[in-house]
């Protein structure tokens, strides 16, 4: 019986998104959408923060030069069309005409140039947006409708970066007269920012004369919703209560323990969108301690039963990972999955070979009287209860082959401190990005902590990752394929699960599309009356 029930549950999960899309009721205009978000953002200007909450809100306020559809293809938006030089050093964008910002300023080549120059200017303190633009040589406005972005060396990932709200275009008139843009945004998007209050949320209202939009959108013209209110409700049970009592129409971060009850509630739906990019993984510090030995890393990787650990922690609400990339990432290689997996006898054999052959009284392996201890240092305010549970499951699993996995919870400062001073064996995180160039952020030697996120402290991938930045599509596919293979084979990381954006919503909410980076897009959304 239980098996039948869970089969039915799986079927319902598989069919739910299809069923939602199959309803071809006509969209209606009007209504205010209330969305409760679990985390707040300090800054609403998308050009100067990497916050994903800012991205969700600002997506409604600013338009991008290009759009990225759900199938990862690029569509026109503020740029009607573009040309890219064969060596990926020169991008020419032809802008759409008659676009205005909500303050009346027309969108032209100078406006685009002003935005990107501002992001590059160190005084702006832009980090993420700047990294998306890459090592720009020059930005030129050839005429009113033509912008050229040029590079010294080939740079392929630009289009994907441009499609994100972080590089959305804001009104230059507004930017010039506003010394502090942390609390305000003026763009050309389908909504305008009415208010932004730290700790409380944002209120955006529809722009009636909006007459453009991303090529991937289902409709043209003004948005269906009159307004969207984003509220901040950090407490998961309160967020859930607000949704089930109908006080909000959608929430993010549905708690896994309540996932099923929301799914089974006839008036609610859970829409899960798996993140493209780097899966939540344990990055093994290759520069010191037991993990400096490749065999020990491989043993650890084989000792983790990813499927059952993820099932125990997330109760089936998230998928176990089978590769460093999530399946929706460009150039994801599905063949990697078969190359690794849970194999305790292999783990035992590798550890014996590596010299960790003795066992102490508690069953942990030792070498020269030293116990096989590895430390996982994490920021406890940054990790959910489920992630800690997952770590405990892994701790139990690897103990079976003799690893002493020590969990070291600390605060943000303790975590970055340990990373910077190389005092850890395992670090864990994920990155959302459909562009495989994200591997450069995670595995380039320039970004070894404290300079960045290369927590595995890997040098060996530099050549491939740098070459891939400017290579042709075919070559990039090959290079990223090799990189994926090597990351698993050399056990730089143990991929755990595919992080996802989980939107719990009233069934009345229709037409959500998932723009780049697996974030809900409300331009096509509407509320059933």
């Amino acid at each position: 019986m239980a098996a039948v029930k869970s089969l039915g549950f799986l079927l319902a999960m598989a069919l739910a998104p299809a069923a939602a899309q199959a309803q071809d009721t006509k969209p209606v205009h009007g209504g205010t959408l209330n969305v409760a978000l679990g985390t707040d953002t300090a800054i609403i200007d998308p050009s100067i923060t990497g916050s994903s909450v800012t991205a969700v809100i600002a997506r409604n306020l600013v338009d991008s030069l290009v759009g990225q559809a759900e199938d990862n293809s690029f569509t026109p938006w503020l740029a009607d069309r573009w040309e890219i030089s064969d060596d990926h050093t020169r991008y020419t964008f032809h802008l759409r005409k008659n676009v205005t910002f909500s303050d009346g300023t027309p969108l032209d080549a100078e406006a685009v140039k002003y935005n990107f120059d501002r992001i590059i200017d160190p005084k702006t303190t832009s980090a993420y947006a700047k990294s998306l633009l890459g090592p720009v040589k020059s930005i030129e406005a050839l005429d009113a409708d033509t912008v050229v972005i040029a590079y010294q060396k080939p740079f392929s990932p630009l289009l994907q970066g441009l499609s994100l709200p972080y590089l959305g275009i804001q009104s230059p008139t507004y930017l010039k007269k506003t010394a502090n843009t942390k609390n305000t945004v003026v763009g050309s998007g389908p909504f305008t920012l009415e208010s932004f209050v730290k700790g409380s949320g944002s209120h955006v209202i529809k722009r009636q004369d909006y007459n453009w939009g991303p090529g991937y959108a289902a409709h043209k013209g003004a948005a269906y919703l009159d307004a969207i209110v984003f509220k901040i409700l950090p407490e998961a049970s309160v967020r859930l209560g607000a949704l089930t009592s109908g006080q909000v129409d959608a929430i993010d971060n549905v708690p896994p323990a309540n996932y099923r009850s929301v799914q089974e509630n006839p008036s609610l739906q859970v829409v899960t969108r798996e993140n493209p990019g780097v899966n939540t993984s344990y990055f093994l510090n290759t520069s010191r301690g037991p993990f400096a030995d490749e065999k020990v890393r491989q043993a650890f990787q084989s000792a983790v039963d990813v499927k059952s650990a993820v099932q125990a922690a997330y109760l089936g609400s998230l998928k176990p990972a089978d590769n460093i990339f999530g399946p929706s990432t460009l150039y994801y290689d599905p063949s990697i999955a078969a190359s690794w997996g849970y194999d305790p006898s292999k783990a035992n054999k590798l550890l014996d070979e590596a010299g960790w052959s003795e066992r102490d009284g508690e069953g942990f392996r030792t070498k020269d009287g030293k116990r096989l201890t590895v430390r996982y240092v994490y920021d406890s305010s940054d990790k959910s209860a489920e992630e800690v549970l997952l770590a405990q499951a892994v701790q139990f699993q690897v103990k079976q082959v003799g690893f002493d996995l020590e969990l070291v919870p600390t605060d943000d400062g303790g975590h970055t401190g340990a990373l910077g001073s190389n005092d850890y064996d395992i670090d864990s995180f994920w990155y959302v990005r459909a562009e495989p160039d994200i591997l450069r952020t995670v595995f380039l030697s320039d970004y070894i902590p404290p300079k960045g996120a290369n927590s595995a402290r890997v040098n060996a991938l530099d050549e491939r990752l740098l070459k891939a930045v400017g290579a042709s599509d075919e070559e990039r596919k090959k290079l990223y394929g090799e990189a994926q293979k090597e990351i698993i084979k050399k056990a730089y990381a143990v991929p755990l699960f595919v992080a996802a954006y989980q939107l719990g919503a009233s069934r009345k909410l229709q037409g959500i599309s998932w723009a780049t980076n697996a974030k809900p897009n409300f331009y096509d959304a509407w509320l059933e009356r």
Partner: protein
Amino acid sequence: MMPGLSARLALRALNRLLMIAVVLWGAATIAFVVVKLIPGDPVGVISGGDNIVDGPQREAIARQFGLDQPIAVQYATYVRRALTGDFGTSYQYRQPVTRVIVEAGGYTVQLAATAMLIAVVAALISAIATAGQRAKLRAALIGFELIALSTPIYWIGIVLLTLFSFKLQWFPVTGSDGFRSLVLPAVTLSLPLGALLSQVLRDGLEDSLTQPFAMTVRMRGVGETILRIRHGLRHAALAASTLTGTLLASVLGGSILTETVFGRPGIGQITLQAIKSRDMPMVLGLVMFSALIFVIVNIIVDALYLVIDPRLRRASHE
């Protein structure tokens, strides 16, 4: 009036001001030292989110926020600026700390003042009605107060929300819009405060009602309620007002949890974020802000002592 009185008063005031300055300086210094002792990377916080910062950019950020200076220089700059009310720029918000605090402060003052009002009124009614009488009601209220005092405030908030917002839909769950959204958070915050005040007031009242003066007043034919309000309460209030520090601390601490549960903006939320992300200027600013409030409230309470207890007034004239 004696001739030396005004001079002595001036000396006392000066003394007092000096004490305030020392307290604030001490708070500022301890906060600075503690914040600097915690390990971590402020540049990571400043660059925010999915931070990707290369070497030169790190240096630029450090220079901009003065983090490349020796600690002693950073301290001197910090104290010099603090004297003019400038606590620098928040790493997270990239705005002057003072402005962020002032903006958020309004919401917290609104919440705290309402909660205090509810707590004081409820405690007064409960204490006057049940001190030394109405045994059953008294026992019930004491039981309730014990529960309110020992229950974590976020749990109270969630229970109230589940009942009055999710089930009955009398009040909205979220936000800072209008009076109706203030009710549940204010009641949540007021419950432990009211419970504590009520217990202290009741004890004080019961104590004073057994004093000889109560007997005298009763013999003059004054009614029981008037006796309690006009005569007993003064004695009880003296004891209760020594709790100010504790109460203030629970208001500030409680507002962090209340604001988080109810998704209200305010000092609590900002404090939590600042500590979590090691936003040093913000933490320092908040510590100074709390210290300032404590100092101000203590001055007010000292003045209130004189109003409540005439004996203290006479002593100061001698």
